[in-house]
């Protein structure tokens, strides 16, 4: 009888451990900022044979503008990642 009681006590104690299960809540992967999903534009080239230096200069300035816009996107992705990681890390139970 004592043996049976011991077995049953052990079984009932182990019962709780058998119930352990993971929390079935999965956070949704965060949406990126739409602006960041746009691809960087191609740099501009100059067409024609006789091109004034001002035209060349304008194209260079336009390309600098494109570079800064693209650089802005890269920095945006870095900010987005850091912010979303901080938010995600706070969810952990």
């Amino acid at each position, binding site marked *: 009888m004592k043996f049976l009681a011991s077995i049953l006590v052990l079984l009932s104690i182990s019962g709780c451990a058998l119930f352990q299960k993971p929390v079935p809540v999965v956070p949704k992967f965060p949406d990126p900022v739409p602006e960041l999903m746009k691809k960087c534009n*191609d740099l501009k080239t*100059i067409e024609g044979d006789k091109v*004034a230096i001002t035209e060349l200069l304008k194209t260079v300035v336009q390309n600098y503008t494109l570079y800064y816009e693209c650089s802005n996107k890269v920095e945006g992705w870095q900010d987005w990642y850091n912010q979303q990681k901080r938010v995600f890390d706070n969810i952990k139970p």
Partner: protein
Amino acid sequence: MWIFTVITEYVVHAIFAVGVIGIIIGFVLGFIPIIGKYKLPIQIISLLVFTLGVYLEGGLADNKEWELKVKEVEAKVAKAEAEAARLNTELQASLTTKNTVIKEKGETIIKYVDRFKDREVLKTIEGPERVRVEEVIKYVESCPVPKELLDIHNNAAKLSKQEGQKK
């Protein structure tokens, strides 16, 4: 735990209670003649029922704790999703502002370059500076950039594209 979808909380408590009562009857009230006759079967059955009751009670408590944890995590996730959306909106606004400033600055420089092209720049300059700017304009008008230099620029602009590759 699947069993809690079949039996209610009250059934679990009832099984536990039956087990406890059975143990009391089997182990304590054995001196009563009618019970004493079935003492061993009552003891065995009540121990089994009690064990099942303890097991289910433990499971029930654990299940409740788990449900609380689920609710807690769900609340955290909802809060995080709202926070993520708010940060995205802020980032979108920040990016739009930065891009607008970049475009405006670029356009301002281009307009300044155009002032040399259409001689507008001369309207605001007087004296020896005007002579110098006139020389610049003369250079701009009479000296086109050689094709070779334009090709170098264009090749550099297409640096990230390989032969025959479309972006």
